[in-house]
């Protein structure tokens, strides 16, 4: 067990709890920075592309985590904001706007648009917001078709390459540069996210999640704060959408569908609601499942000559994992990790109920 002796208020404010934690995260940073070296060595960057995809998902996941995990507002429409970001990026690049301007702007505009759509329903309680965003999700594909001049409609649109001051970046021809770019965006957002959580803005988000009535009594303007959270969340999703476009190379009206929105939501729950780590853990699970299924399938085929090819297996397996998590580990993968860590730190004094939360009876939520 480590005792942290706090000698100044900085100890509570700084990014890392203690020196050792900073060292661990430093090592992690080195690891992710060095990852491409391995792929250079083996001369095959296919898996690196998958890892980049996971990072992009994690960026979108962080956006949703802020809204759902830290502000307590469920959204079933984050793929729509990704679509906003992606198409705005494409159009600005097409109009000749440099990438370094188009990219952040596509996130910000997606954030503004998302907030404008959500504002009328933000007054409502959680489930209603889930329904409204669900409706939005269902409408996305149709709107992409209607907005054909900008989106290419059903035929789809090609995503231009990234050009940063003359440096061309393409997912296939320069996978390493693309990886570092995505990694940079992800780390920057993590830093922003951490800053939020240790300052008044982030605290007002979590206050709303835990008790709206009490948050108001502390002087927090509910609608404005929720809108703020929604804006930041949709902005992150928009940025992820723009990167997703670059990664996919080609997007159609069916790219950003309901399944994607739902996947994002299930992902952050599996990862651990209310923890930034959760977005990353969840994205890793989402990235690994298809690979695991493909491997399992070919294993069954080669050893038992069984042909397992059932459509929907992927999402069913994913859903099954999720249900197991909600039932047995509501804090998600990150929660499990915390428990294991605490177990070893306190060995042999760990108690089973250490992380147990008090169960409360549901009071009616119908406030209108």
């Amino acid at each position, binding site marked *: 067990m480590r005792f942290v002796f706090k000698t100044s208020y900085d100890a509570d404010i700084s990014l890392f709890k203690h020196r050792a934690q900073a060292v661990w995260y430093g090592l992690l940073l080195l690891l992710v920075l060095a990852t491409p070296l391995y792929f250079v060595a083996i001369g095959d960057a296919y898996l690196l592309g998958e890892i980049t995809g996971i990072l992009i998902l994690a960026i979108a996941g962080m956006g949703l985590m802020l809204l759902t995990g830290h502000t307590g507002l469920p959204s079933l429409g984050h793929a729509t904001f990704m679509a906003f970001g992606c198409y705005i990026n494409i159009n600005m690049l097409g109009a000749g706007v440099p990438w370094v301007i188009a990219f952040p702007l596509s996130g910000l505009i997606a954030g503004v648009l998302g907030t404008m759509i959500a504002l009328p329903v933000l007054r409502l309680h959680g489930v209603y917001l889930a329904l409204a965003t669900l409706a939005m999700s269902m409408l996305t594909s149709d709107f992409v078709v209607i907005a054909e001049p900008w989106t290419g409609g059903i035929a789809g649109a090609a995503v231009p390459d990234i050009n940063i001051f003359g440096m061309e970046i393409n997912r296939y021809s320069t996978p390493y540069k693309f990886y570092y770019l995505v990694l940079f965006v992800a780390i920057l957002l993590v830093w922003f996210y951490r800053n939020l959580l240790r300052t008044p*803005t982030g605290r007002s988000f979590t206050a709303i999640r835990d008790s709206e009535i009490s948050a108001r*009594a502390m002087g927090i303007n509910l609608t404005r704060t929720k809108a703020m959270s929604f804006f930041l969340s949709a902005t992150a999703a928009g940025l992820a959408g723009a990167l997703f476009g670059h990664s996919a190379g080609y997007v159609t009206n069916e790219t950003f569908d309901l399944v994607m929105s739902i996947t994002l939501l299930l992902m952050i729950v599996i990862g651990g609601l209310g923890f930034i780590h959760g977005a990353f853990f969840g994205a890793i699970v989402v990235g690994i499942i298809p690979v695991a299924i493909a491997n399992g399938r070919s294993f069954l085929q080669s050893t038992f000559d069984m042909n397992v090819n059932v459509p929907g297996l992927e999402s069913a397996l994913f859903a099954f994992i999720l249900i197991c998590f909600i039932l047995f580990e509501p804090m998600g993968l990150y929660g499990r990790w915390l428990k294991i860590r605490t177990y070893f730190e306190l060995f042999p004094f760990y108690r089973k109920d250490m992380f147990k939360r008090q169960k409360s009876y549901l009071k009616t939520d119908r406030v209108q």
Partner: protein
Amino acid sequence: MNLLEIENVTLRFGGLVAVDNVSLKVEEGEVFALVGPNGAGKSTIFNLISRFYDPAEGSIRFDGHDLLKNSADHVPSFGIARTFQNIELFEQATVLQNLLVGRHRHRQTSMVSNIIFSPKTYREELGHRAAVEEVIEFLNLQPYRDKMIGGLPYGVRKVVELGRALASEPKLLLLDEPASGLSVEETQDMAFWIEDIQTQMGISVMMVEHDMGLVSAVSGRVMALSDGKELATGTAAEVQSHPAVIEAYLGTGDISKTGTSRT
């Protein structure tokens, strides 16, 4: 000088008159208690001051401001802080974080400045942290500083909620049943704290309380309510011996024995 002035306030829920033409004044530096049987409208008056409810008639003024012209989230900015009858803390946060939310009304920095953690944000955080530490010191919350609310015993939560209200450095503190569910020792601590809050910090206190022992120990004036109407106002002893109050309590027995009743 009067800090809070409530004049002829009436609130109806459908056919039920929850608060019936009540007027009261809280003076600067006093401890004012509301007593009365369950459903008398005591907490409702708090919720009116917090602007959770809109009165049908009447006016509520605080420190020169017309509260009825402001929404609930503006009320704290005038210097009103409150606690709740059924503790409403931020469950999935630590004690420290809860107290820091109490500092919300003193917030100076913008969202953008927070996101990039500007030097200004840093200085503000240090200030908040120092202010909160004083509250922690005052209420002896040091052992619980980094504990999650979810795992704390009831009595400690009650103190944390008081701390959160104090962290906002209010002029008026509204305490909704501060002693309900507390043990005898904890209630005694609460009484000392309320006295210190009044005398040392110069904060006026308005409280709803069933425990007449606590009420007589700390409050200057007491108002008894029943069915939303004022029965009597005066010192604790005067109110307890007032015929209308005794009558209102006949169903539940002697007023001094209602200390343990909880809602």
